[in-house]
């Protein structure tokens, strides 16, 4: 899952990013409205965490611009203003959710996951294929009832593959949605993560390589 954090308070942005990366998300940071729109141009984010009081372009205008573009990304507005009118205004602009500062980090993570799930219509918090189950909220994967020790990156890749429901997921997309912008663009990291994941998932093998077209979960 890929998240863009738009927050002009640099330390807060960096701290949120650290926390979200620990939860297995790929996180990029933008410090102002212009930067946010530039980052979001590729539309590769599942969720955009948008502070409302931003320099250069106000958060409200960023939200409007994103909605006008018909973005796939879900927008979670963060703001210090917590009056009911402010929340209603924020949601009225097209934001998908609204979280007033200061918030509990666990709630932020839960909301981001809930928003990301909305992109896959009808998908519950638990993804399953055969005897493999992935609880995307608890971040726990089991195979035949046995818990798998997966790193957050491996969990993220597994979630993307399971979420595609057996359809092939191109390496490029895994890279775009599972890693942040500073990753090597050659896809070697994807290969390494997939091979580790295959080893941890055990037999019979569940991840298939689709020649020239990435990977998929076998049926």
């Amino acid at each position: 899952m890929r998240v863009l954090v738009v927050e002009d308070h640099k330390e807060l942005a960096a701290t949120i990013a650290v926390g979200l990366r620990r939860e297995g998300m790929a996180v990029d940071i933008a410090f102002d409205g212009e930067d946010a729109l530039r980052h979001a141009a590729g539309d590769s984010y599942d969720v955009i965490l948008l502070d409302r009081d931003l320099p250069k372009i106000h958060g409200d205008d960023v939200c409007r611009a994103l909605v006008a573009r018909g973005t796939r990304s879900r927008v979670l507005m963060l703001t210090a203003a917590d009056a009911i009118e402010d929340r209603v205004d924020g949601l009225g602009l097209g934001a998908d959710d609204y979280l007033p500062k200061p918030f509990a980090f666990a709630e932020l993570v839960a909301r981001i996951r809930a928003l990301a799930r909305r992109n896959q219509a009808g998908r519950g918090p638990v993804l399953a294929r055969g005897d493999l189950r992935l609880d995307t909220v608890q971040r726990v994967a089991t195979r035949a009832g046995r818990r798998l020790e997966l790193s957050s990156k491996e969990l993220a890749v597994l979630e993307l593959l399971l979420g595609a429901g057996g359809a092939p997921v191109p390496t490029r997309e895994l890279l775009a949605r599972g890693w942040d912008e500073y990753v090597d663009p050659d896809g070697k990291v994807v290969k390494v993560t997939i091979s580790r994941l295959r080893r941890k998932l055990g037999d019979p093998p569940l991840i298939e390589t689709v020649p020239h077209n990435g990977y998929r979960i076998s049926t």
Partner: protein
Amino acid sequence: MTIRLRLTLIYGGLFLCSAAALLAITYVLVHHQYTGAFFISSSRRGLVTVTDAKGLLGVSPSPKQFPVPIGPKTLVTNGKLAIAAAQGQSDAALHKLFVDSAFALAVMAVLSLWLGWVIAGRALRPLRTITETARQISASNLHRRLDLAGPDDELRQLGNTVDGLLARLETSFEAQRQFVANASHELRTPLTLERTLLELALSDPNASIESYRHTCEQLLAVGEQQERLIEALLTLSRSQRGLDGHQPCDLASIASAAAAAADYDVLAVHTTIQPASTTGNPRLVERLVANLVGNAIQHNVEHGTVNLTTETREGRAILTITNTGPMIPPVELDRLFQPFQRLDGSRTTSHGLGLGLSIVRAIADAHHATITTDALADGGLRVQVSFPAA
């Protein structure tokens, strides 16, 4: 008693008085004419004609004639009889005039009260509009205005005055709202950071003494930042409250002390100090000068300059501070003095709290000092604060 009722009674009372006076005058005049001389003449047909001095009797256009027996002996007797008859007639006419006038007066009094009620209502209608609209206007719909139509009279002027007051209130409420929104952002963002840092440190599966130490250092830095912010907010609020007393303030020594205490490395700070004294709160004036000097140093260019001068001119104690620095669009100048406004529009804390110049303005206002700001053509700012000289 409402103004409308009072006006109606005044209209009605005045009408009643003047109408009664008019009728009284008419009555007196008529009465006077009846009691004047009568002229008696006889005609061949045996009629005696009685006329008053003007040839008229009462309101009748023709002379009154009274049939009497004809004969030379009877003329005088007949004349007396005629006079008596005419007297009786005029008494009756006067009585009728009195009764009719009283009736007419009563009818007109009622009519005038009703008309007075209607006219007072019309005249006071704008007042009712003002009252009703003013009742409906509260802090949430201060954008509403009375917008009275009609001639430019006293009530319209009152309406325009109230509109002007509402406009000033709206501006001030808006500024207040903006201030609260900005202050809550500035206060809640570091709170969020503190909470997130703590939660992440507690939930870190790979936590070590080192990572805890790092988090503690970060938290301390955030705490210090908040302390400075709260201190600045309190100073702002204290200076907005006005001055408790006026003590002598030596602007010259305050300025030299501020220049000496300023923290800078690659800048050149020049001072031209001439005597300048004012009165007020010396601590607040020190804060004003320190904020201006700090601002001039912070928003400067490498190897730039800061010039600080004090002087007394035309009964004013004047402090001028000029610095080299980035180009500032003249339209941005006023914004700089508003709370939480920073030149680059950011809130990034490395560039101060965004309250320094607001505090300068509040302190200047409290001391009845005026601030003149000019953006210099090749970048930088010139700020002049003119205090009343002591």
